[in-house]
């Protein structure tokens, strides 16, 4: 008899996600992914000046803010007929590249690492390293004070968890170092973005921040520090875990899914866009021995609402999508729509990008026996962080050259005014994967707006044909020997770096005691 368990909410992710799985003989045999927060901010944009869109959409989410801003600006570029000068693109690339540098290590250390280590092993550290002893004192102190957030909640360690006190304590030390690096990295994007979160400089036609030599130098200095951490700490940690204690999980391919992947392609390395950091392409039914990548045809994208809490509608292209909630719909179980490409569910994100790019390091891991799944996702994320660091250096050099050219431009000012009519699509590859924004302009105002975000692809429910979404499929076969301890379920889900935040930030205590602090 299959036993149904629910993980609600999945913790240490950004946003609200509920996962239900059916377990039989110690393995997941069926799964449902449910986004329990209503989205649909697009409705707010209707009737507004299209130029406002990139600012409004950056408020969709406090985590992935600028990624919406740039996807929106690109949709507007297309609708307005604006051509962003190379100088503008370089600055867009640099501020968006910085996002990878602070997002990916944060995901590995702060959001995921606790799934793979037995944190309590710290108490058994017998070494003499002063710094590590300070870490031990800190953690043991927190445990004694019963104040273990953010190290909890978590499941019981299983056989894949690292229990060696020396490894665990250095991992926790890196957890703390990564937080400090994160703080420093945040200032990179702000050099031209003006601030983080919510950059201010990305607009239709380019950017508003005219660069100077000092800024380039500052960015470079910060980048040097991040590069050191990424190369000397982050990547070695991922390698040590992935090829060490987690190798059995990697070989089992836990968290595989449909083996369909997509990257829109992004981050030009030259003005013509001949070379990209992340090439675009679609893989349907991965054959690791002979990877076949087709070009992306965005006309093949549809969204199904069959299992979403939306008014019934046929699967339609995002240009024609609508946002009408219907909460009493039979069989519906999520606020997430089901995007499909040519009817197929796809995975987006670092693993998809690295497979589409046929990245040699990833292919090498696969050749050695790692099946694309949860562990491979962490590896792909680390690999592309390094690619992004290298690309940032290239862009800084290019920017320095570009700035000395006569007539250096960062914005296409000819196309600042909204057209009477137009439509456009904007694509971006943010840390979490393929993001698309679609806009229709009529009478100089926004007539329709739709965003298909990465977690919509990954967290998608079933579609008209009953085909599971990628999280759902990725869970099938995951070992859950003890239904009370579904640690592999959360490992699989967190490996995607879910972000369903796009919403509320209220202080909402689970107690009415807060009322004693009312002052008026």
């Amino acid at each position, binding site marked *: 008899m299959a036993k149904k368990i629910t993980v609600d*909410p*999945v*913790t240490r*992710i*950004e*946003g*609200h*996600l509920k996962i239900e799985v059916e377990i039989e003989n110690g393995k997941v045999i069926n799964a449902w992914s449910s986004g329990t927060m209503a989205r*649909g*901010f697009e*409705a*707010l944009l209707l009737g507004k000046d299209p130029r406002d869109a990139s600012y*409004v959409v950056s*408020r*969709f*989410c*406090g*985590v992935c*803010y600028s990624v919406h801003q740039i996807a929106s600006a690109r949709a507007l570029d297309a609708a307005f007929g604006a051509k962003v000068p190379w100088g503008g693109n370089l600055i867009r690339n640099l501020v968006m590249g910085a996002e990878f540098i*602070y997002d990916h290590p*944060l995901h590995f250390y*702060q959001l995921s690492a606790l799934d793979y280590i037995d944190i309590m092993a710290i108490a058994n550290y017998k070494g003499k390293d002063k710094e590590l002893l300070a870490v031990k004192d*800190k953690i043991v*102190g927190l445990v004694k004070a019963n*104040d273990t*957030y*953010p190290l909890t*909640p978590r499941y019981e360690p299983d056989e894949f968890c690292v229990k060696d006190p020396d490894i665990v304590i250095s991992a926790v030390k890196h957890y*703390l170092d990564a*937080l*400090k690096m*994160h*703080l*420093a990295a*945040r*200032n990179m994007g702000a050099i031209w973005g003006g601030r*983080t*979160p*919510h950059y201010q400089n990305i607009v239709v036609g380019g950017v508003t921040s005219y660069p100077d030599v000092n800024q380039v130098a500052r960015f470079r200095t910060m980048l040097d520090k991040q590069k050191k951490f990424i190369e000397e700490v982050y990547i070695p940690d991922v390698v040590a875990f992935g090829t060490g204690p987690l190798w059995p999980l990697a070989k089992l391919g836990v968290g595989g899914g449909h083996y369909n992947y997509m990257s829109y392609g992004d981050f030009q390395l030259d003005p013509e866009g001949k070379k990209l950091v992340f090439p675009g392409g679609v893989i349907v039914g991965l054959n690791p021995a002979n990877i076949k990548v087709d070009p992306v045809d965005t006309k093949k994208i549809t969204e199904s609402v069959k299992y979403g809490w939306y008014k019934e509608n046929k699967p339609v292209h995002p240009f024609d999508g609508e946002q009408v909630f219907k909460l009493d719909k039979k069989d519906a179980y999520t606020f997430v729509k089901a995007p499909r490409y040519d009817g197929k569910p796809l995975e987006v994100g670092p693993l998809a990008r690295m497979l589409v790019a046929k990245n040699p390091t990833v292919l090498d891991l696969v050749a050695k026996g790692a099946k694309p799944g949860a562990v491979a996702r962490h590896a792909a994320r680390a690999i592309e962080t390094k690619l992004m660091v290298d690309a940032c250096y290239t862009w800084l050099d290019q920017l320095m050259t570009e700035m000395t050219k006569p007539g250096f431009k960062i914005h296409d000012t000819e196309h600042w005014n909204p057209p009477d009519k137009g439509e456009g699509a904007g694509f971006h590859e943010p840390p979490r994967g393929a993001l698309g924004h679609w806009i229709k302009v009529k009478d100089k105002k926004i007539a329709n707006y739709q965003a298909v975000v990465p977690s919509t692809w990954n967290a998608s429910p079933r579609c008209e044909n009953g085909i599971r979404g990628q999280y759902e499929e990725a869970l099938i076969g995951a070992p859950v020997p003890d239904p009370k301890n579904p640690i592999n379920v959360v490992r699989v889900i967190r490996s995607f770096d879910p972000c369903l*935040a796009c*919403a*509320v*930030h*209220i*202080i*909402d*205590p*689970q*107690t*009415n*005691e*807060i*009322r004693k*602090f*009312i*002052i*008026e």
Partner: protein
Amino acid sequence: MKKATKSSVVRTKGGAKSSPQKIIILGVGNVLLSDEGVGVHVANELMKMEFPPNVSVLEGGTDGFRLLNVITEAERLIVIDAVRGGAQPGSIYRFDINDVRNCPSGFKTSVHQIGILEVIDLSGLIGKTPYTTVIGVEPKSLKMGMELSPEIKAKIPRVIKLVFDELKMSSKIKRTIKLL
């Protein structure tokens, strides 16, 4: 970034005690969900006003983790946010983080969301936690929309006054820096 340098002076042990305490006023919330964004609206108003150089006004949107750089820079933090305590809409709350830590039934807001209080906790893990006060407003509506409800909008001047009261008090309060 000039300000960052100043605060790092303050942070050094010993010396520097004479430099004024670094105070950050941080408005948070989602401006797309009507009254959820009250903290941001208040911050935007405050930004139009004059403050001494040791005081910064910031608007953090709905960021969680990523506000750490701001929080760790502050010695005194005044957070303005919507607080859902089930009271009359427009009610104003004021509490120090240390007050709510002691709530017996646990104040931790929500485990699945990395909210402002959780981030303040995290700041303690890598250094110091600023002495933090939250000024909260009970929202009326959390519906999608970029405007505040009229009742909540009417409270903005009052919240601003309370922020100024905190600033006045701050100059008298002994620095409480929690070192872990």
